[in-house]
């Protein structure tokens, strides 16, 4: 994204002396009825042509705040593939365009200076993170699940009741995720016989 910062100044120097004088606020003070130089006479070109960056967005996406469960509407402004601003969606009957400090900070959440963009891998007994490609990580995780499950499968409980499960794998999290994501998690875990699926509902 760009900010209209002093790009105008260059143009101004390119102008002739007459133009320069013409635009000299002292001249404008006298000419434009602002003798004290407190108002329009001293307005810079940048100030004159200032536009809010939400008006320069390529598209605006209706979204929902990711924090608490009030579910406030958000408008996400995008330019050049980057979020330029997030603010409340006035159309929402839930929030009427308002947001709390967390919701208002959602752009900074998505663009946090601490945001991680790469897979990090710590091998057993390792002392630091290592790089790992996403594909390799997925492959390794899939294999871990298969192996752990195979090694710890319970057809029946100790007293002979049906179990059809592994108690060696758990999955935690969901309250910050989408319904569709939770649906896939529970479906996949149920298919795999993983029953220890839990989320923040208890905390």
């Amino acid at each position, binding site marked *: 994204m760009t900010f209209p910062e002093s790009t105008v100044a260059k143009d101004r120097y390119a102008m002739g002396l007459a133009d320069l004088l013409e635009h000299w606020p002292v001249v404008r003070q006298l000419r434009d009825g602002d003798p004290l130089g407190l108002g329009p006479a001293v307005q810079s070109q940048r100030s004159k042509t200032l536009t809010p960056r939400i008006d320069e967005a390529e598209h605006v996406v209706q979204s929902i705040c990711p924090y608490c469960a009030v579910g406030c509407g958000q408008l996400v402004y995008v330019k050049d593939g980057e979020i330029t601003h997030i603010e409340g969606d006035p159309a929402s009957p839930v929030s009427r365009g308002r947001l709390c400090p967390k919701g208002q900070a*959602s752009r900074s*959440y998505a663009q946090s200076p601490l945001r991680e963009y790469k897979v990090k891998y710590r091998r057993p007994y390792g002392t630091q993170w290592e790089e790992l490609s996403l594909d390799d990580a997925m492959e390794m995780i899939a294999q871990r699940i298969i192996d*752990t499950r195979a090694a710890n499968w319970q057809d029946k409980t100790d007293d002979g009741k049906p*179990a059809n499960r592994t108690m060696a794998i758990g999955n935690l999290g*969901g309250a910050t995720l*989408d319904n569709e994501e939770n649906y896939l998690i529970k479906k996949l875990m149920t298919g795999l016989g993983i029953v220890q699926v*839990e989320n923040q509902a208890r905390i």
Partner: protein
Amino acid sequence: MGSNMAENHPVGFQWVMEARERGAKVIHVDPRFTRTSAMATKWVGIRPGSDIAFLGGVVNYILQNELYFREYVEHYTNAPVIIDEAYVDTEDADGLFSGWDPEQGQYDVTTWSYEGMETHGAAGQREEGYSPKGEQSGHGGHGGGLKHGEPPSEDPELTHPRCVFQILKRHYQRYTPEFVAETCGVSVEDFAYVCEALVQNSGRERTSAFCYAVGWTQHTVGVQYIRTAAIIQQLLGNMGRPGGGIMALRGHASIQGSTDIPTLYNILPGYLPMPHTENYGSFDNFVQANVAPTGWWGNFEEYWVSLMCAYFGPEASSENDWLFDHLPRIDDDNSVYWTLEQMLDGKVRGYIVAGENPAVGNANGKAHRLAFANLDWMVVRDVVEIESASWWYDSPEIESGELKTEEIPTEIFFMPAATHTEKDGSFTNTQRLLQWHWQAVEPKQDCRSELWFYFHLGRMIKSKLKDSQEPRDLLINKLHWDYPTHSAIREPSAETILKEIGGYEVESGEPLPGYKKLKSDGSTACGCWIYAGCYQNGINQPARKKPHWEQDTHVAPEWAWAWPANRRIIYNRASADPEGNPWSERKKYVYWNGEQETWEGIDTPDFDETKPPDYVPPDDAKGPDAIAGDHPFIMQSDGRSWLYVPQGLEDGPLPTHYEPQESPFDNPLYSQRANPRRQQHKDADWDPYNPIEGEPGFELFPHVLTTYRLTEHHTAGGMTRSIPYLAELQPAFFCEVSPELAEEAGLENGGWATVYTSRSAVEARVLVTRRMKPQTVRGRVTHTVGLPYHWGQRLLTAGDTANDLLHAALDPNVHIMETKAQTCGIRAGRRPRGKALTEFVESLRAQTEKTRPEPEETRKT
């Protein structure tokens, strides 16, 4: 009560402020004077853990002064129902209900039934101890066991000594204003103010609402807190009506959704129960064990079969009992703390954490971190490197030497996640509204949505196992796992999944209009029956964003979509009187149109549209047809709301005051001190409890400890401690104490304090404030120490973790820990560091364990 709405739901609180400006009374009953209290018409400072005493006092006030909404109570609640002779109340058994089995530490709940009820089909299972519980019964009371919609014995006069109304009256008769004042540390005048305000603002013309949050749920008797409020709201006629109800203010964007479409061990989508390890014998028996003959849970089989068709597609059929025999089975408790225990025992080998930070957010954080070091592998998915990902090199246990990085065998995959702006999907908010968020930008580099992760993980696992003949791989191989993808990263289509959730006709693929169309013959598939219809007419209903100013009513039905059936207030038939007329013009909402012979109003009626108010079900009626025309609570087997809960709860049919696991006081009512059914980890050394009064070392932990959230941060901080603008607003972990306690403990405003329990010790900056008011309870001054729990050892603002102090004794119904009322000690200065910290905590424990008597010998704890 039990909520700090202004701080934790600020934008939702705009409606409360607007009501206040229009003259509504806003009352905040809370241990702390918070930003909510500051906005309230009245703040009543209550001792943590004493809410049932307070609310029970309100019930007693209503009953003793005959201020209940008679017509509502008589017709819409189970007040007239006569209870089985075998039922014995806590008032007659010193704090225990009938059926208590001290060996098992459980209740036999059969004595709590309605009189004359025959247990239906699945008697065998019931004897084996199976009944729906916790979330399984959350929205149901399925298996309520009524042959038809009416309980066998009723007394419309409400005078029979064993009718619910009279039992209620007796149960709460000792909850007098003086009792409330003594137990809760409030004044009789303040209590009277609350009672009067509630009663005056309820009835035909007016309604009152309760708002609660985890201040109520996070107790060893948490479910019963909410139940007590439910009793008040039923007595005052505030359920199913506009401006009434009990509002659960949930804390995460889709915590409601993740319960409806659960990532929970004990339920499947739509609150269908996970099968237990019981040998049901057959699928039919399982259905019989769960179906309610009457009410909407009568269609249990339709819901179940449709789910299985969504899960397994054509692989599920009536011939193979919809694969029932292959489904995994659960034990009574496989919840997160149970998993923790198993992990500590080395039984759990792999753990996937997605969008949660248990190292900071869960009670007894240290136990969690130590448990992670027992895993073979762990996957952590988040947008920043949270404490649950970094524990192996920077946790407090590394500092103390209890863990050594190079000795930890756990293999860890940190997978960067996508944010809500980087994916399509729906959240279900706290009022059951499914709201769609559209993707705004592509996730960068390795960042991926959970949708992507789990879809491709499943795809890869399935492809690796596709040739397996192992019985254990049968189910995964039959799983229907075919979703279209888009974009360069092959993101699965969230809308396709929403369509599966909303249900479709198997034959045509046409989306279903609602749950009434679900079939048990395999002709419909539906991923979550209560969400059925969310894709009706092929339209993504949650994505409807018609501005509220373009809609006719404040209900704004064309903004997003509420389950079920886009109903904004459930049980809204109760907004009309038994004859179907609005209780008052002012509170008109849904009502019977006699001419059109249909229910109508500004919301989707929560009733059979054409069932007249005077409908009386025939004796052989089943399912919804068995609900009478003047019984609004259609999910219940008797169509009424339950003042008294005959089935579904583990710890009693009526809420009763118990002290928390840890409290400075005995139970003023009974020698039974705390909830007898609460879950403790008594034999585990990872979850020691502070001594209670009379036990050695009690004086080490004289103060009440309560934890909470601040506006400026979110839960365990992963989504806010990473943001400079938020980190600077609350830049340090702090404790809030009264000037009196500060004086007593030598604490200085802005200085440091060490807070400690038997679990751990943490250091926090001190904020001395009048807002923490010492309370006089039974003649004794008690102090409360307040701790916000957002901090962990890393990110932009770092600090000790309040949850490290907390034990994990649980509510028996929903396995939620008691974060809101524990005990602690406090002293000035920073905590011991390194090894000295462990030694300090051990020395505390040594002082409590020296000559500790067996609790059972001296008292019932």
